[in-house]
C-alpha cells in the first residue's frame, strides 16, 4: 500500500478522540473519564505487546476453538440457485457465538490491567455467558446486567452464567416494569460509575470510546479468518459478506479486514423493528453518537422489537453509522418472518441450527445470492447457534413441526 492508501484506509479506526467521521466519541460522565482514558492507554499498550497478543491467540485457538470453518453450504446454494454460499461458523465457538472473541480479549485486558472484578451487560445472554466463562477461567468475579424481559426469554443463558459463578442483576427501565438490552446498558454504566476500579466488559461495538475500537479489534479475527480461508478455497475474495447487526460487533468483526477491498460488497442486516440505520436519526446516548431510534426531542429511545433478542437494540455501533454515511456498507433489514423462514431453511438444508440473530443475515443473503451468477461468492456469518431459540421456534411452529 502507498502511504496515501494507508492514510485513507477505512481500517484506521477512530481518530484520537474516538470519532469515526461524525460518529462515536466519548460522551461519558466525568466519573468515568479517567477509567476510559486508562482503558484506552492499556488497550494500545496491550495490542503492541507481543506476549499479550500471543496469549489472546493461544486462548482463541485452545479455548474458543478457532479458527472455525468457512463452510461451503452446498445444499443451500443448490436450493437458492445463485451465488455460491459460504458460512462462517462462529456458531462453533465455545459457548456458541462470536461474543467470546470479545469477552476473552477484554478479560485478558482486565488481567493485563490488574483489575479484580468484571461488569458486563447483555441482551440475549450470549455476551453474559461468554464473559462469565472467561471470568471463571481467569478467576474474576463477574456481575452481569440483564433486562428483566431478557432474563425471562433467555433463562437458560442466565442459568449457564450462574453455573460459571456469575451474578446476574435484573435491570428495568425507569418505570421498573420492563427491561431490555438498552436498560442493561444504562444500568451497567451506572454500576461502573459507582465502582470505577472495576473493569467493564462491553458486549458490542458500542459505548464510549475506546469500546467500539476494542470490540472491533477483538472481533476482527472473524474477517481475518474469512479472508485467509476464502483465498485458500477459492483463491479470490468473496463478492459479498453479509452479517446481522444489533450493536454491530459480529458485523464489524466480519468486514473490518475487507473495508478497503472495494470489490467486496458488505451488508449489515438489522431487524425490521429495531432498524436504527434505516429508520433512525442521529443522536447521542449511552456514551456515543450514532444512528438511533429515538423520540423527537431525544429524551428517550423508541421501543424496539425483534424475534432475536441479541439484535433488539435501538442504536448501533458508531463505526456503522460512519460506514453508512460514506456508503461503504449496505445496511438493510429483514422481517421476523423472513428470518424465521431462513432459520428453518438452514436447519433443513444443511443440518445447521443458526441463532435467530444470524437468521436475519441469512434472509438477506438469500435475496442477494438469488440474483447473482453461480460464479459469485457470498459469505454469511453464522454468529451464533440456535439452541437458545428452539423453544420459541417450537411455539411458532406448533403442529407444523411434525412428529
Amino acid at each position, binding site marked *: 500500500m502507498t502511504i496515501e492508501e494507508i492514510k485513507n484506509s477505512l481500517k484506521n479506526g477512530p481518530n484520537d478522540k474516538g470519532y469515526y467521521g461524525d460518529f462515536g466519541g466519548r460522551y461519558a460522565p466525568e466519573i468515568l473519564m479517567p477509567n476510559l482514558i486508562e482503558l484506552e492507554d492499556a488497550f494500545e499498550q496491550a495490542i503492541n505487546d507481543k506476549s499479550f497478543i500471543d496469549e489472546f491467540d493461544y486462548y482463541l485457538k485452545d479455548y474458543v476453538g478457532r479458527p472455525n470453518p468457512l463452510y461451503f453450504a452446498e445444499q443451500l446454494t443448490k436450493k437458492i440457485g445463485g451465488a455460491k454460499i459460504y458460512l462462517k461458523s462462529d456458531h462453533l465457538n465455545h459457548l456458541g457465538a462470536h461474543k467470546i472473541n470479545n469477552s476473552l480479549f477484554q478479560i485478558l485486558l482486565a488481567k493485563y490491567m490488574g483489575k479484580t472484578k468484571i461488569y458486563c451487560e447483555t441482551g440475549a445472554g450470549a455476551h453474559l455467558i461468554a464473559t462469565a466463562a472467561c471470568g471463571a477461567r481467569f478467576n474474576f468475579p463477574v456481575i452481569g446486567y440483564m433486562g428483566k424481559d431478557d432474563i425471562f426469554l433467555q433463562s437458560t443463558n442466565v442459568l449457564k452464567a450462574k453455573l460459571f459463578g456469575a451474578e446476574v442483576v435484573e435491570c428495568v427501565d425507569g418505570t421498573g416494569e420492563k427491561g431490555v438490552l438498552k436498560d442493561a446498558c444504562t444500568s451497567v454504566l451506572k454500576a461502573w460509575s*459507582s465502582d470505577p476500579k472495576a473493569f467493564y466488559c462491553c458486549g458490542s461495538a458500542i459505548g464510549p470510546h475506546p469500546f467500539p475500537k476494542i470490540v472491533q479489534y477483538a472481533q476482527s479475527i472473524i474477517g481475518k479468518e474469512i479472508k485467509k480461508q476464502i483465498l485458500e478455497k477459492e483463491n479470490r475474495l468473496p463478492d459479498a459478506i453479509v452479517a446481522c447487526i444489533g450493536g454491530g460487533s459480529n458485523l464489524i468483526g466480519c468486514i473490518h479486514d475487507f473495508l478497503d477491498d472495494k470489490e467486496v460488497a458488505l451488508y449489515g442486516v438489522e431487524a425490521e423493528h429495531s432498524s436504527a440505520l434505516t429508520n433512525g436519526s442521529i443522536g447521542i*446516548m449511552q456514551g456515543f453518537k450514532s444512528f438511533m431510534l429515538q423520540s423527537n426531542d431525544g429524551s428517550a*429511545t423508541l421501543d424496539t422489537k425483534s424475534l432475536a433478542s441479541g439484535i433488539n437494540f435501538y442504536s448501533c455501533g458508531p463505526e456503522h453509522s460512519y460506514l453508512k454515511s460514506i456508503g461503504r456498507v449496505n445496511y438493510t433489514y429483514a422481517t421476523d418472518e423472513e428470518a424465521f423462514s431462513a432459520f428453518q431453511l438452514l436447519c433443513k438444508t444443511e443440518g445447521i441450527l443458526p441463532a435467530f440473530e444470524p437468521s436475519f443475515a441469512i434472509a438477506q443473503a438469500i435475496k442477494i445470492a438469488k440474483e447473482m451468477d453461480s460464479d459469485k461468492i457470498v459469505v454469511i456469518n453464522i454468529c451464533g447457534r440456535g439452541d437458545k431459540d428452539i423453544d420459541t421456534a417450537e411455539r411458532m411452529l406448533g403442529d407444523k413441526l411434525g412428529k
Partner: protein
Amino acid sequence: MINLENRISKIFKNLKSENKKAFISFTTAGYPDEDTSLEIIKSVADSGANIHEISFPHAEAQADGPIIQLANIESIKNGINFEKVINIAKKSREYNQDIGLVMMGYLNNIFIYGIDKFAKEVSGIIDAVICVDLPEDVIEERLLKEALKKENIALIKLVTPTTSDERIQKLVKDADGFIYSVNVAGITGVKSAQIDMVNSQISRIKKYTDLPVVSGFGIKTEEDVKVFSKSNADGIVIGSGIVEKIQEVSKIETNKSKIADFVKDFCSKLIINLNS
C-alpha cells in the same frame, strides 16, 4: 439583557460577604406534571434558594439514581419534552429575576434541538447549563460552550472523586460560573457523602481555581445539610432529597399549590439548617 454571568457571580459574592453557602435546589421539569413542576420551581425560589437546577428529563440518564430516574420516566410519559422544559425555564425567570437558573441534563436533547438555537432561546433566561455527558474532548463541548458564552451563559464543569489533579487543572482552565464537585463515585441519591472526603476534594479543586465550588450528590436530609454546612463548599446541591419529597407528597396530594408549598417548607428548613 441582564448580565447573566454576573447573576451567578453576584449570588456567590453576596453569600460570601454574609459568610453563607449557596443553597442549590434541583427538580425535574414536568414532574409530577408540567404545571406543578413550574409551581414547585416558583415556590423553591420563594423559599430563598439561591440557585435552582431545572433538570430536563432523559430516559437513559447515566448518572441518575432510581429516585430521579423515576421522575424522568414519569414526566416523559406525561408528555414533557425539551421545548416545554425551556418554557418552564422562561416562566420561572418571569416569576423571579434573582434566583440563578441552571438547566441540567444530557447532551442529546440540546444536540437534537440544535446547539445554537438552544443558546439563543434560553438567553436571558438561564445562567448556566450542566451537561452530564459532555466531557471536554467531544466536539459539542466546545460548540456548546461557545454558543452559551455568546449569551453569557456558563457551561458548568463537574469534578468527581476519580478526577486527578492533572485533570482538574485542565477542567477548571476555561470553566465558568462555578465548579460542581460530585461527592461520591456513582449515581445520584444512593450513596451518602462523607464530609472528610468532600472537603479534601474541594480543597483539591480550590488549589487550581478561584471559582465557587458547590458540592452535590449524597446530600439528602436536614441532617446531611447540617453536616455539610460545615464543609468548605461554597454551596450545596440537593437533588434526590427534594425529588423524593415531591414523590411522596404527590402520592397523597393533587393540588398544585399545596404540593409547591410543601416543597417550599422543606427547602426553607434545609436553608435554615445550611446557614445557622
